[in-house]
């Protein structure tokens, strides 16, 4: 029976120069980074790019890791912030863009494929403002408690609770519209 080294240990080791520990760490977490990226952007291509950027930046980032937070919490925060950055950059490029995943114009095509498969999801996520999307991705997509999501987003638990209730309200309204249609 073999034990898995805790993330925190690996991260500390990686931060102090142990490349094997680093390799183990990114390998272990790649899928998680990718999945959250997908939940945040709604596009597989975007998520892959995002995950790659994050992986490449991780060594640099790790210097900022102090073992004061859970590694996964920290990592989720890195992913969310990277997604924000990407959104902002895209927003600068295309000020009028507004939509789940819309922000990467160059990838409209592959996104269209993503969307066809995920129509309802796209539609619902697309109608939520970005900060609600982030919250939903963490709370529903990653099964976090509101406290955990708050820790990742740097917000109070209460704010997450607010956001989730807002999400519920909006989903209900969308469902009502759907029923009307």
């Amino acid at each position: 029976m073999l034990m898995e080294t805790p993330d925190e240990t690996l991260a500390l080791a990686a931060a102090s120069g142990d490349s094997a520990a680093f390799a183990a760490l990114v390998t272990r977490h790649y899928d998680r980074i990718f999945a959250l990226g997908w939940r945040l952007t709604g596009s597989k291509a975007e998520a892959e790019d995002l995950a790659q950027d994050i992986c490449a930046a991780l060594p640099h980032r790790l210097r900022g890791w102090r073992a004061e937070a859970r590694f996964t919490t920290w990592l989720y925060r890195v992913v969310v912030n990277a997604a924000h950055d990407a959104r902002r950059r895209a927003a600068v490029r295309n000020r009028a863009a507004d939509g789940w995943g819309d922000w990467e114009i160059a990838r409209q095509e592959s996104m269209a494929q993503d969307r066809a498969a995920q129509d309802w999801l796209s539609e619902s996520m697309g109608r939520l403002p970005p900060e609600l999307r982030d919250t939903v991705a963490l709370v529903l997509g990653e099964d976090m408690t509101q406290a955990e999501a708050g820790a990742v987003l740097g917000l109070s638990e209460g704010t997450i609770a607010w956001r989730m209730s807002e999400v519920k309200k909006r989903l209900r309204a969308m469902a009502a519209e759907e029923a009307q249609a």
Partner: protein
Amino acid sequence: MTRDPELDRLKAALKAAPASSPTARAAALARAMEAYEDSALSRQGPTPPLRSGPDHPVKAGLAKGLTRLLSVFTLKPMLAATTSVAALAVGLFVVLPQGEAPPARRSAPPVAEPMTATGAEAPLARRAPEAAQGGAQGITTQGAEAAPMAAQAPMAAPAPLPGAKAPAAAAPGAPEAAPLTSRSAPLGDLAPEAPLADTSAMDTAAPEGMAASDSAAEVFANSANARVQSVAEAPVSAFPVDVDTASYARLRDSLIAGALPPPEAVRIAEMVNYFPYAYPAPEVGAPPFRPSVSVIPTPWNAETRLVHIALQGRLPEVAARPPLNLVFLIDTSDSMDDPAKLPLLRQALALMLPDLRPEDQVAIVTYAGSSGAVLAPTPASDRGTILSALNRLDVGGATNGAEGLALAYRLAEGMTAKGEVSRVLLATDGDFNLGVDDPEGLAAYVARKRAAGVALSVLGFGRDTRDDATMQALAQSGNGTATTIDTLQEARKVLVDQLSGALFPIADDVKVDVEWNPSQVAEYRLIGYETRAPQGADVNGGVDAGEIGAGHAVTALYEVTAPGSPALVNTPLPSAPAQATTAETAQNTAQAPAQDTAELGVLRLRYKAPRESVSALIEAPIQAQDVPADLLPEVRFAAAIAGFGQLLRGAPDLGNWGWDQAIRLAEANRGADPFGYRLEAVSLMRLAQSLAQQTPPAAPAP
């Protein structure tokens, strides 16, 4: 899981994340390793050799940090950790080139003691100690308390290691600062977390709907610094576009009756938005409403600035407006038998009639005892019939709202032809027992009707029995406003002056937010919402999308504090992340040419044209520049009213600025004031001043 089918559905959809593609995964991992080799980390010291078999765990395989960490461990976790190092080492031996023939320094005894696994590889550390959120930044690998590891070491198969990638040396040029890092984390990541102090006590359950949102607001109210938001923590602030004005009428009522209103009843945003302002209107062909952003020195604080944001809806094109169908749903229960209620309503409606056009239709439904239509849909030109129906209105019986509401909607739906605008106007003194048990259910009903095309506005009459919260919740769901009518003058304002505004949407689903530029603004306060979130909103993010009617204007005031100002309320940020953020923002806003004209932020408005589903975006920079001469009095008057409200609330932000200054500011900026609203405000301020001098100072509102 949840009891919410929509949430469950969304959850299931989100869970179905596509599998990552093996190619992308391999590429990403390879890049990670390249970056690692190139980074300062890998040069911190020689990587100690790693190697061993399952029964030869490496002891000193990991570098300093780990050793230090291990040294504080008690025996059991240490053994466990050592074992896992062994597991790791096994994998490494297989795949890593640098794993070649490293001498194991010493073999350790095999580890017995299997740990009890707590759910293999919990994806996220549940119950992660909140205290551990101390600002994850800086280069510190030491001082790592045992905390993170001590908890639980999940048992699982060893992580698969990257297939023989990881070329040690010849990593092709990935620069040390990999792409992502240079523009890293403008917002939360590097900034020290400053968890809102008191909100942790809040129930983790998401508040359900409106009722709960009030209690949540209470919780925010107790939080010492919640009223001032730090830009690092919440760079985006939203404000609602459909602001009710009921609070102003209520405080006027109270002041005229000789008493200061209770501080918690004073809603500054409602006061500010009570007044008509001469804001520049949209040009023909431009979007249906126009933002004006002004920055002035804060009257009550030399260290801060006041950002005044105005949205002016296109003025009604009276000639071209669509026909209008109005159904008045009138509460005729016993409590309405008061000169300030039913008779006032009667007069108010009579006042409004001349402003309707022949093709408009009016119907009246009462609810009390038995509800019924007292006036079938009637063309507005048939003034006699409508007036006599109004005069027949009589009070009697208990409220029977359910039928009345359903009937009103039925009539309204029947009256609506293509291109017409229909609205139910609920006139009541606050007994909203409309037959739906829970307010949320009622609000949902109203929201469904709104989606189907019939909006609802609430006209509140009388003073004591008004259930303010329900009134606002209903109006909000019905895409209308809640107003209080207590004088004939008020009736004129609500029904006549603003008839066109409230009744003809020119933009739907309007969402407004401000994103602050952290290099210019460190803290902000949305005046009027310090102790409660904007309706249906969380303090940082989403606000209920609202409707903007023709001629409708919205005013929002932010008091903003620059970085480094002595007026900062929250702990100042360490400078390093602030600078990173600054560079980031300057890069991103891309339109901030020079420092002195730097943007304080960006105002963003999203809206849909009525009955359209595509939303449009307007953006306006918030810049400190000279305010046009014709706009300045409007901005200053709004500031004076905000000051008035804060004085009434006993708010702590005013320093030495008091009644005299507020009155002078208001009086100097009365403008044309054709209906005397501003003049009235000045006399109310004088009245309040003398009342305040008689009464001991009010305790600050919670």
